[in-house]
């Protein structure tokens, strides 16, 4: 299979990228690792007139701490996250990264590319939602920050304007005791999630100060389980609180029957995975101590 013909540019500066996007708008598509885009091009589901390869840009890679935030360059690969040393409380990134696709894809695919592709079965979207990540979007008009919880607009559709590019992912570093994890049910390595669940809690003494819960592959976008998050705030992570949050998350899910399972099964797996995830967090927090 060959992609259809396209013009190709590989700029070496962000300004050039922004200028190309300003000029070509909807006709242009940004190529990062290409692990989602190239299959779409081959299947001719996408046929952009211009491909803007950001693979030769300096920077936009790796993670640095800046004012209580872990700033991740959008071109950071999944494997880079797997291998990175992370601040305490952001273990969810280490849990999620090795569950994405397979090792060869993770050597090429990028976190920013995955977020912008906005597949409702994508794993990073749920993690970004659970962490309350901020996404830095750049265009020739300037920069704006968009909350990950406001970024996903529909299947494969985001808040990005045609002339914008995601440059950085801002992950708040928890100041107190915090824990998070990502659980994924998949039929085999490399398959899309049947269901995925990202959970993150930040504690205030024995009680939850803030909870973040993102759901994968059970709605038209990665989904923030708002009611479940709210139900945990101010409570201890006891069995009753965990069960209620899990029930509310399952209620928020809106899955569809497909080859990976029935809607009812997936909804119940949301409940199970949220419960399992929160219990894991409780255990980790106990290990860390008060």
């Amino acid at each position, binding site marked *: 299979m060959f*992609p*259809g013909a396209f*013009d190709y540019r590989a700029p070496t500066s962000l300004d050039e990228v922004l200028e190309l996007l300003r000029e070509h708008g909807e006709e242009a598509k940004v190529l990062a690792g*290409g692990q989602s885009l*190239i299959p779409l091009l*081959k299947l001719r589901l996408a046929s952009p007139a211009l491909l803007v390869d950001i693979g030769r840009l300096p920077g936009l890679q790796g993670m640095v701490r800046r004012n209580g935030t872990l700033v991740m360059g959008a071109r950071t690969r999944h494997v880079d996250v797997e291998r990175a040393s992370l601040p305490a409380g952001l273990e969810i990134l280490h849990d999620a990264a090795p569950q994405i696709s397979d*090792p060869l894809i993770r050597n*090429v695919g990028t976190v920013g590319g995955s977020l912008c592709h906005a597949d409702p079965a994508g794993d990073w979207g749920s993690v970004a939602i659970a962490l309350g990540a901020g996404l830095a979007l750049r265009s020739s008009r300037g920069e704006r920050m968009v909350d990950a919880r406001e970024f996903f607009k529909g299947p494969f559709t985001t808040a990005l304007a045609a002339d914008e590019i995601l440059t950085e992912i801002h992950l708040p570093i928890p100041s107190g005791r915090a824990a998070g994890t990502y659980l994924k049910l998949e039929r085999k390595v490399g398959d899309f999630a049947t269901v995925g669940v990202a959970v993150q809690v930040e504690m205030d003494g024995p009680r939850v100060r803030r909870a973040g819960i993102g759901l994968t592959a059970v709605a038209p976008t990665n989904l923030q389980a708002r009611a479940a998050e709210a139900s945990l705030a101010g409570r201890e992570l006891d069995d009753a609180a965990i069960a209620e949050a899990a029930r509310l998350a399952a209620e928020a899910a809106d899955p569809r029957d497909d080859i990976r399972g029935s809607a009812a099964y997936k909804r119940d797996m949301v409940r199970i995975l949220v419960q399992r995830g929160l219990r894991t967090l409780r255990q980790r927090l106990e290990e860390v101590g008060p």
Partner: protein
Amino acid sequence: MSEIGVRVNGREQRHEVEPRVLLVDFIRTQLRLTGTHIGCDTSSCGACTVLLDGEPVKSCTLLAVQADGHEITTVEGLARGSELHPVQVGFHEEHGLQCGFCTPGMMLVAAALLERNPEPTEEEIRWAISGNLCRCTGYVNIVKAIQHAARLRQKPAPPVPTGGAG
């Protein structure tokens, strides 16, 4: 057309390619290195695995232009002249293949793994090859072959026979 410069199996090359040409087709058709196979052509099977700057990638899911300025190793680049790579010896001696279609990809993944992790556990080996499918072996002998290769890498090379006897 775009001009790309790549280092393939240690040799610098410059080529004109159409931007939409996939890396695997560039390798097979323009470079005539047909050890890199096309299996599923949909990023699932790993038959097209090559090393890009030493890391295994699926060459059916990269454009040749993305490899510009990078180093590519194909299965043809594993042996040094007539001296087989330890992974090749491992696959030979432990019967790590039957039909052989997945073998180039499996061996490249194994070679990259052993560079990073010279003494992998069985679980680490199984995770490393989890992006590569084999329809024949049930993976048992592939794992054994990689374990054998890891042992071979640890040992100093045996003395070269000087002939005479036999």
